[in-house]
């Protein structure tokens, strides 16, 4: 059955395969940005500053892992910033006001995150409303809930150290650098996500669902169940990241994580994951997370005035996306 008239020569790539991958362009951009900031200000790579960046990195980075998988399956979640706030608020309220043990409180907080993710997922898949609308509404519900149960005030600062707190937000020194345990969480979760997306059967299903849902369903892939599970995962990771953040600064605030949803989506997309589903890269998301963190940190160091800060963040992200698109076009990542 020789249906094919094309000849193998026409498919030869102009560039070697590794150079054409979307994560490679993100990596190049990241290197350029890091080099640029270190030249502009030599304090950029100082131990204190690197430690600072590494403290913030896992918090958004962990959410970005879930968001990458979700985007690859063709959906996204705008409620993560609000869940980031609600998770730790529930935990600390339960401990401080209800006298619950920290372990139980953490579990309760995570169960609430599971429920939020499940509601998002079930409405999106079973009722068929777009994830934009569902999770936008959920953003208001969850943020409102966090504000209401705290009456709008940040909670009392946390003053009970313990094993669980150390596990979430302990810190250790390596030479003159200071690292938080959350960095290990981030590294472990990143490796796990890379494995799932690129090597496991589930990853094949996730990409197939985002690429052509009806094709996946026609091959017997349980698309709805996978999507619901990914909504739950994203929500749980957002809650976990919120708890890590709250214990690191020893306080939970109902307005924590405002606008995080967009920053996380920016990290994922800057990393090379397709906004329309089907193509996702965890490694790219890692580069994206590093990039956005470096930009936020670097433009302060080079003396951009505080109020002009977001102008630069937005403009740089936009420039990255344009550069990314151009590099992808140049290496022929998109054809026909």
């Amino acid at each position, binding site marked *: *059955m*020789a*249906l*094919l*008239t*094309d*000849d*193998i020569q026409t*498919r030869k790539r102009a560039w070697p395969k590794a150079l054409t991958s979307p994560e490679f362009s993100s990596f190049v951009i990241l290197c350029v940005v890091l080099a640029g900031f270190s030249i502009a200000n030599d304090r950029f790579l100082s131990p204190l500053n690197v430690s600072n960046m590494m403290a913030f990195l896992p918090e958004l980075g962990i959410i970005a892992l879930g968001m990458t998988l979700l985007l690859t399956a063709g959906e996204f979640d705008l409620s993560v910033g609000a869940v980031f706030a609600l998770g730790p608020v529930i935990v600390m309220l339960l401990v401080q006001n209800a006298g619950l043990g920290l372990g139980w409180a953490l579990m309760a907080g995570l169960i609430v995150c599971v429920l939020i993710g499940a509601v998002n997922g079930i409405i999106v898949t079973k009722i068929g409303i777009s994830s934009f609308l569902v999770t936008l509404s959920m953003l208001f519900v969850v943020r409102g809930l966090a504000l209401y149960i705290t009456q709008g005030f940040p909670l009392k600062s946390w003053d009970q150290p313990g094993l669980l707190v150390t596990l979430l937000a302990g810190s250790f020194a390596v030479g003159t650098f200071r690292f938080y345990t959350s960095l290990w969480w981030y590294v472990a979760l990143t490796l796990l996500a890379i*494995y*799932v997306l690129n*090597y*496991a*059967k*589930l990853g*094949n*299903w996730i*990409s*197939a669902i*985002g*690429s*052509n849902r*009806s*094709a*996946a*369903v*026609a*091959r*017997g*892939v349980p698309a709805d169940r996978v999507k619901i599970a990914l909504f739950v995962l994203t929500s749980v990771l957002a809650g976990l990241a919120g708890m890590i953040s709250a214990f690191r600064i020893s306080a939970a605030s109902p307005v924590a994580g405002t606008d995080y949803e967009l920053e996380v989506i920016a990290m994922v997309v800057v990393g090379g994951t*397709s906004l329309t589903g*089907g*193509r996702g890269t965890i490694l790219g998301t890692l580069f994206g997370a590093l990039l956005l963190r470096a930009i936020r940190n670097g433009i302060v160091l080079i003396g951009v005035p505080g109020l002009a800060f977001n102008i630069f963040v937005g403009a740089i992200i936009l420039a990255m996306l344009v550069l990314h698109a151009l590099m992808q076009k140049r290496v022929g990542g998109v*054809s*026909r």
Partner: protein
Amino acid sequence: MMAEVLRIENLDKSFGGVRALKKVSLTLNEGEIVALLGDNGAGKSTLIKVISGVHSVDSGKIYMHGRPITVRSARDAIDLGIETIHQDTSLAPDLSIARNLFLGREPVKLGFLGVFAPLDRGRLRQAATNLLRRVGISKALDANAPIRTLSGGERQSIAISRAMQFAARVIILDEPTNNLGVEETHGVLRFMKEMRDSGHCVLFITHNIHHVFEVADRIVVMRGGEVVAEVVVADTDLLTVESIITGADFSQLLKEAKGARKS
């Protein structure tokens, strides 16, 4: 008498208030090609989606080799040996050829890990290469190339190879020659004949009546959700079939025209 493979009896399906299928009965035999014809909205696609597990039925029975079966999902249909090639494409454009060929049936290592089990990449690539070679398209295609880099005809042949590979007993094709070039169309028709000759039963939907007369053994015509006619290709002609599809009696018109000419 050829052995019966799939028999459906009194299938009913409604969407809201619309009855898409009304008491549809149909039998498919081993080693035959059946063409399913009808105008848009006649219920052909709905019937196919019911058989392939995309839609569930309201009432009616499906038998495979005489035994009653229930097709609740696409998975069930595949497991029963019913392979469907849906209209346009049933492939995921961002996945590689190899991954598409085995989507939903991935070879894995450490199977006890369930959905977290690692894909057996070596076996996947090997099986894909073998399959492509078997259907004669190995030299032009890299099993790791994403589907989106292929042409429409190439995609169709990948979808067909996938149906072949699982040696399905029943192969259903929904407008398989849509958007294909002349050569590719002949490839698809040749494939259907090969499948028939190896004992499969092939059911296909098309709007191209010439293809029907080229390959089909039997024609089933649907109109308004009902099967209105079943004819053996050898016993009929193009005009008769067309008149059954539209419901207009062309043969009567033709007779009148002939009579008018005579007088």
